[in-house]
């Protein structure tokens, strides 16, 4: 059974190589190719589900090539699976399966590479989640990155995808090289690459210069991936232009993997060595909330459907960072639950946007206004998913609110809730406008109109109807979000909290990895929290959903209600100045952002 750890990564890789080896064979057997890829992705879901069951009682470790550590020193590479890491990998695999189903006969040309790249991306995600070795983490991070760059530029006939892929690849590569420098730095001090071993070393050298600087440098690549202010610029450019099934993965899980990486790196390597939890927590909270606000504002003024969803991802990523940045089990629990729910509903939303693009050939909210009426099922799924995004019970996202309510300081919570109302209100506005023709279309904006016009259909045939393979995955994802939410009434929250407590216990992690100990955490011993669904969570969820609907209706009917909402050309110009699409700007901001973060962390820790 242990072998599942290795198989979950290597089977998709082997299949990817296999389908490329016999590429001409698939030329006339497209269905076989699609089927092979879907079956592989689904089998990874099953393997990861088995792993989740296996690690319920305590984390498990797998040593590649059989090189076990002796005397607390590791010479091989290990996979370390806990409930959170295996769970996130499962979410990723589910989304890949849904995306592969959605893209059944989606691309007419050079299809084999698409399938191979998606499977490689899947393997990269799984490896990234499970690995317990910091350099191995970097390798899977890069593998995921390279596959993602290539997938972003999948339609080189268009202009946007190239621009988006270039900015994406440049920003992420620079971030990754900083991460690698950090890895080299910590290796130079500790002489170890195993995260547990580094953690043990760092705890013996608390707050040393090396630990502080290596922490920030390693974080750099992950912050870029997680699209945290001011490293977020690439995201909208890339997410808006990638093929829809790829967007599902980018927004649903790739960004969250960056956040997971931050949590993994912090708790397995640095939590003992850095100390100063309060100060660090305040910093992460501030950065996260700021990202949430900026993402929400950009989301609100956007009218290109996919860009709108992309900015909402930035906003949610910020809120999630704030949740993780509380550095408490409750905050992490909330973030983990939210990631599951968000991945499912965001996936559904992107798939709906893809269906709109397939049927109507555009993603411009203004031009689409009222045009989506014939797409009844799609409209329904879209509205349900956007209510889920707002956190309406029983979608899984609402569960998170209970934990955040409990854990976060009041000011941060208030801002986070406001961000949620604005982003989901903007998504709802788009949904109600496009599918039901409510109110008036948003303001005209020549630049955005041009951007949206660039995005023409991805599909070449069959525009007159929505194939089942498109709508079913979207509906399934939305349904899964609700199903997971219902699990919340049967103790999901308790299980996740236990997982979070375990995830944050660095000593137990080190003992598990380096000394083969089997540590089990009785949940009851840990800080009291809402074990099951609290009335507060339900109330907050309902209030958020109501607020979002009200906000959406207000913006849709602003003219008839004579609301004093108008365009602010100056604000628009400033916003566009930041989101300029020029990679030089992005790199300049990246460097400045890293310098500021570095200075602050150094001040806090030393």
């Amino acid at each position, binding site marked *: 059974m242990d072998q599942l750890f290795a198989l979950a990564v290597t089977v998709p890789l082997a299949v990817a190589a296999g389908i490329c080896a016999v590429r001409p064979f698939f030329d006339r057997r497209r269905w076989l190719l699609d089927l092979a890829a879907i079956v592989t992705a689904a089998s990874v879901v099953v393997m990861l589900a088995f792993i989740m069951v296996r690690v319920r009682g305590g984390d498990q470790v797998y040593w590649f090539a059989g090189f076990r550590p002796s005397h607390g020193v590791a010479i091989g590479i290990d996979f370390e699976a806990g409930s959170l890491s295996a769970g996130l990998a499962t979410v990723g695999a589910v989304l890949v399966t849904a995306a592969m189903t959605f893209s059944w006969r989606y691309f007419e040309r050079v299809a084999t590479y698409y399938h191979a790249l998606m499977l490689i991306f899947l393997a990269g995600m799984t490896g990234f989640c499970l690995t317990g070795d910091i*350099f191995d983490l970097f*390798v899977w991070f890069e593998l995921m990155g390279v596959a993602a760059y290539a997938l972003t530029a999948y339609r080189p006939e268009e202009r946007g995808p*190239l621009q988006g892929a270039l900015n994406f*690849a*440049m920003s992420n590569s620079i971030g990754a090289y900083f991460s690698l420098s950090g890895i*080299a730095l910590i290796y*130079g001090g500790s002489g170890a690459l195993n995260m547990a071993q580094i953690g043990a070393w760092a705890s013996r050298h608390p707050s040393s210069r090396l630990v502080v600087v290596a922490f920030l440098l390693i974080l750099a690549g992950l912050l870029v991936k997680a699209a945290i202010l001011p490293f977020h610029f690439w995201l909208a450019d890339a997410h808006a232009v990638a093929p829809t099934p790829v967007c599902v993965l980018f927004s649903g899980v790739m960004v969250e993997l960056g956040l997971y990486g931050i949590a993994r790196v912090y708790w397995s390597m640095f939590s003992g060595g850095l100390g100063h939890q309060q100060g660090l927590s305040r910093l992460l909270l501030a950065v996260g909330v700021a990202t949430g606000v900026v993402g929400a504002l950009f989301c609100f003024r956007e009218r290109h459907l996919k860009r709108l969803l992309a900015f909402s991802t930035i906003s949610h990523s910020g809120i999630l960072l704030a949740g993780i940045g509380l550095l408490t089990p409750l905050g992490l629990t909330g973030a983990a639950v939210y990631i599951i729910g968000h991945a499912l509903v965001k996936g559904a939303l992107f798939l709906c946007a893809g269906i709109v693009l397939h049927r109507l050939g555009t993603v411009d909210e203004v031009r689409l206004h009222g045009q989506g009426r014939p797409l009844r099922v799609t409209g329904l799924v879209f509205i349900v998913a956007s209510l889920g995004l707002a956190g309406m019970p029983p979608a899984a996202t609402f569960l998170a609110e209970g934990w955040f309510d409990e854990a976060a300081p009041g000011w941060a919570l208030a801002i986070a809730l406001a961000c949620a109302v604005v982003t989901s209100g903007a998504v709802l506005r788009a949904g109600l406008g496009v599918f039901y023709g409510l109110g008036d279309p948003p303001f005209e904006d020549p630049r955005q109109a041009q951007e949206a016009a660039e995005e023409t259909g991805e599909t070449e045939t069959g525009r007159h109807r929505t194939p089942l393979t498109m709508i079913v995955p979207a509906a399934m994802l939305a349904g899964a979000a609700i199903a997971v939410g219902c699990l919340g009434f049967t103790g999901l929250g308790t299980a996740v909290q236990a997982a979070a407590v375990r995830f944050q216990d660095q000593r137990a992690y080190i003992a598990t990895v380096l000394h083969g100990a089997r540590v089990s955490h009785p949940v009851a011993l840990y800080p009291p929290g809402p074990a099951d669904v609290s009335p507060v969570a339900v109330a907050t969820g309902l209030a958020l959903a109501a607020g979002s609907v009200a906000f959406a209706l207000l913006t849709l009917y602003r003219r008839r209600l004579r609301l004093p909402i108008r365009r602010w050309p100056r604000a628009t110009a400033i916003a566009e100045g930041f989101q300029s699409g020029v990679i030089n700007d992005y790199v300049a901001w990246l460097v400045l952002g890293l310098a500021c973060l570095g200075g602050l962390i150094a001040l806090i820790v030393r």
Partner: protein
Amino acid sequence: MQIFPFIIVVWIVAIGLYGIVTSRHLVHQIICLIVVQSSTYVLLLGVGYLNGGTAPYFFDIPLHTRVVDPVVQALALTDVVVEAAVTALLLSFAIQAHKRFGTLDPQELASLRG
């Protein structure tokens, strides 16, 4: 000699990033990215160096010879592959972008896109 090689590392990163920020040509930016990455090789091999150590090949030296760290060399090798892969992919983007836009100036690319 204690920190001197690492000063060079910082210089290489800084000059490479400076090139990316000020460049008006995508291919040049990609070349600067290669420079940024090359700093990581120097850093990796620098932290693994041992005064008086020889290369870790025991073909014709006794087993207990003082050798430099072989692990960082393996990591640097991986790093070189990553560099080659990313560079090749970026160059193909640049070629295709040039076909679509007729320019490789990032500023113009951004304004042409809309």
